[in-house]
C-alpha cells in the first residue's frame, strides 16, 4: 500500500497517526480516571502547602490551589467525575436518541410526528437553563447530573439520526427487507444502523465534548460536583481568583478539559478502518 507510512496496522484495523494521537490521549485520561485513587500524590481534601496559589515545584508538580491543596491530585481525581459522568451521559443520550430517531424514520406516520414534536419541544429549552433549573430544583448528585445531561442531549442525537435514517429508509434494500417481512427491530439494527454508524459516531464524539463543557459549566456555576470533590470545571471555578496571578491552579484544569475534548475529536474524525480481506 502506498499510504502505509502514515497508517498503523494492528489486529485487522488500520489507524492513521492523528487518530492514534487522539486515541492515546483518550486512553491516558481513561486510565487516570480508573486508577486515580492510587496515583494521587496527596489526599485531595488535605491542605498540604502553607502558601496558596503556589507555583510549580518539586513537591507540587502543578502547584497548589486557593487553599493550598495539591492541584495534580485534584485533577487526577477530577478526571473520574468529568470523564465518567460525561461518558455515561453521552452514551445514554446517543443510544436513546439514535434508537428513537431510527425508529421514527422507519416506522413513520403518527409515531414519527409525535416523537419529533415532543423532542423538538425539549430542544427548544436552552440547555444551560434546563440544567440549572433541574439541578437547582432536585439538588445536585451524580445520578441527577448524568440524567440531566443525558436528557439535554437526546433531542440533538434524535434529530441527527432521524435525518440520516430517513434517507436510508427510501433505499430499495430497505424496501426489499420490508417486503421480506422483517420487523422494525431488524430494519433499524441491520439495514439502517450500519449505514449511518460513521456519522453517528462522529456525532457522539461531538456530543461528548458538549457534555464535558456543559458539566464543566454547571460545576463552574456551583451546581455540578459538590466540594470537597471537584471535577475539572469546578476546579477552574474554585481557582478563578488565581487568574490575575497566572496561577497554575487555574491553567491546568483548563488544559485538561481542552486536551480531552480535542483528543476525542481527533479520534472520532480518524476512526480506525477495518481491513477487509478480499483475496479469498
Amino acid at each position: 500500500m502506498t499510504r502505509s507510512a502514515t497508517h498503523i496496522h494492528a489486529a485487522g484495523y488500520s489507524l492513521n497517526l492523528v487518530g492514534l494521537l487522539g486515541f492515546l490521549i483518550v486512553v491516558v485520561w481513561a486510565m487516570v480516571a480508573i486508577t486515580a485513587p492510587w496515583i494521587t500524590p496527596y489526599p485531595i481534601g488535605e491542605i498540604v502547602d502553607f502558601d496558596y496559589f503556589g507555583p510549580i515545584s518539586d513537591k507540587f508538580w502543578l502547584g497548589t490551589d486557593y487553599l493550598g491543596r495539591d492541584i495534580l491530585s485534584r485533577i487526577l481525581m477530577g478526571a473520574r467525575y468529568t470523564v465518567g459522568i460525561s461518558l455515561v451521559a453521552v452514551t445514554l443520550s446517543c443510544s436513546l436518541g439514535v434508537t428513537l430517531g431510527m425508529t421514527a424514520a422507519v416506522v413513520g406516520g403518527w409515531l414519527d410526528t409525535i416523537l419529533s414534536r415532543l423532542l423538538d419541544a425539549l430542544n427548544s429549552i436552552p440547555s444551560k437553563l434546563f440544567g440549572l433549573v433541574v439541578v437547582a430544583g432536585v439538588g445536585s448528585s451524580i445520578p441527577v447530573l448524568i440524567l440531566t445531561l443525558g436528557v439535554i442531549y437526546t433531542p440533538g442525537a434524535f434529530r441527527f439520526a432521524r435525518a440520516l435514517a430517513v434517507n436510508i429508509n427510501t433505499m430499495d434494500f430497505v424496501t426489499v427487507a420490508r417486503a421480506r417481512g422483517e420487523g422494525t427491530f431488524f430494519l433499524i439494527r441491520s439495514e439502517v444502523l450500519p449505514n449511518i454508524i460513521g456519522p453517528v459516531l462522529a456525532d457522539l464524539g461531538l456530543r461528548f465534548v458538549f457534555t464535558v463543557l456543559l458539566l464543566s459549566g454547571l460545576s463552574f456555576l456551583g451546581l455540578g460536583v459538590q466540594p470537597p470533590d471537584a471535577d475539572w470545571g469546578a476546579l477552574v471555578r474554585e481557582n478563578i481568583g488565581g487568574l490575575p496571578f497566572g496561577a497554575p491552579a487555574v491553567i491546568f484544569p483548563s488544559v485538561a478539559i481542552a486536551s480531552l475534548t480535542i483528543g476525542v475529536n481527533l479520534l472520532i474524525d480518524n476512526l480506525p478502518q477495518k481491513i477487509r480481506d478480499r483475496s479469498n
Partner: protein
Amino acid sequence: MANLVEIRDLKVEATSDAGRVIEIIHGVSLDVAEGEIVALIGESGSGKTTIALSLMGYARTGCRISGGRVMFAGRDMTQLSEREKAAIRGTDVSYVPQSAAAAFNPAQTIMDQVIEITRIHDLMPRPEAERRALELFRALNLPNPGTIGRRYPHQVSGGQLQRLSAAMALIADPKLVIFDEPTTALDVTTQIEVLRAFKSVMKKGGMAGIYVSHDLAVVAQIADRIVVLKGGEILEVGTTQQVLDAPRHPYTRELLSAFEPKHYASPARPEMTARKPPLLDVLGITAGYGPVQADGLPLMRALKSVSFRLEEGRNLGVIGESGCGKSTLARVIAGILPQAKGDIIFDGRQMARSAAGRQKEELRKLQMVFQFADTALNPAKSIEDILARPLAFYHGMNRRQREARVCDLLDMVRLPRTVRHRRAAELSGGQKQRVNLARALAAEPRLILCDEITSALDTVVAAAILDLLKELQRELGLSYMFISHDLSTVQAICDEVIVMYNGEKVEEMATGLRQAPTHPYSRLLFSSVPKLDPRWLDSLELDPELVSAFARR
C-alpha cells in the same frame, strides 16, 4: 480536403481516489468529415463520452488528456489555453447532454437559456438571437414555438426539453455538435420525434455531429459512420450499413446478436382442460398515492382497476411508458403499496393488502427484484450476509447450512464463490443484478417480480441475465412477472404481455404469435421500437392522430 476533426492517438488518464493513475483511453484515432455524423457506440465505461468531451478540450474532474492530438478545424484542442477553448465552446463545438432536465436552470425562462450562448460570446443582438431561436423551435418541430420560450423548464415535457437543449446547442451555428445519449432517458414514442427533429436540422444545416449512444438501433437511424468502442479502444470503424450488415469484430457481432435476444417464449396456451387454478390472479386493482378522497380512493391514481392472471410456470410481461403504473403494479402485488380496491389471489390464497399483514410463507413464495441493482443491496453488508439473511429468515438454517447454500446460490447465478466476501460496491452492474436475483432465489419462491431488471445494464450483459432467468426457470420451475419498457426484452422471455397506458391495462396478448396488436396505443408503442435497419426512421409513418392522442411529447 482536411477533415473537420482529426483525433490522433488520444490518451486520457484518470486518477483514482487511492492516487493510482489509470489510463482510460488507450490511443484512439478517428476522423469526422464536414457534415458527417459519426456515432460512438459501446457499453458503459468504454470511454465514448470521454472521447466526445475531448473534442471540446475538456476532461472530467480527475481525468487528464495525457497524450495525442485532437485537431478541430486545424487547431489542436489539447494545446489551447482555457480562454481560447472557452471561445470555441458553444460557438464552434456544442454539446447536447444526456439529461436535459438536469442541464436547464429551473429559475430562468427557456428563451433566456437557449440564447445564453449568443450573449456570453456577444455574437448577435438579443432580438436577432430570439428570431433565430424561433426558427430553430420550428425546425425542431416544437409545439407553440412562439410562446414556448417564455415558459420555465418544468413546464415542458422531457422530449420537448431534449429538443430545446438541441436548440441551445445549435443557436450559434456550430461546426460540430456532440450528442451525449440524448434519447436514452426518453420513452420510445417520444424518442422518434426527437430523433427526427435532430436528423432534419443536422442535414439542413450541414453540420457535423458526434452521436454517443449504447443503442445500435438508434444510432443506425442517424449516423453515417459507426465507431465501436470497448475498454477505451476502437474495435471497429465502418459505415452504418457495413457495421450492421457485415460486422468484422466479434464484439460487434455480439452487440448485434444481443440486440435480438433469443426467443424463449412459448406463446401457445397450455391445453384448456389441463388448466390448474392460476398462480396469480389480480382482480380489479386500484391503487395510488396522495391523500384519500371522499370515495375512499387516493388522489393520484396510478392504477385503475387492473386485472390479469398468470398461470404456473409461465411468464407475464408488463410493458408501457414511464408513468403508466407498471412499477406500481409490482409494488402492490409485493405488498409494498397497499391497494385501495381489488384483490390479489396468489397460490390459491387471498393476500393481505400490505406485506406486514401477510404470512411469512406467503411472502417467501413471492419475491421481487428491483431495477437499480446498486440501491437494492445494502452497501454496509457483505454479499454473504445479504444472501444468508433470507435463508435464516424463511428457512431457519444454521450457520453451516447457510454457508453451503450461499455457495450454491452463487453457482446458480454464475458468480464465483469468492464474491461472497465482497461488498456491493466492489461488483459490476451485471454482477450486482445477479446477487439480487440470488437473494430472491434464496427464498425458493414460486413467482419472481422483475421490475426493469435489465434496463440499467448494457445490452450484452442484459442478454446474459435473460439467458440466466430462462435457465433458472427450467431448473426450478419458477414463474416471472417481467416489467419493462423494452419490448424486445419482454418478447424474449414472456409468453404473454399486457400493455399498460395511464394506469389502465389496454391490451393483453400472447407474444411471438405475429399477431398484430389491436389497441391503437399498443400499435403505436410496438411500431415505435427502433429497428436495426438504417432506413427505418425515414420510412416509418405513424398515424398523426394516434401520436397526438397517446404520445406525450
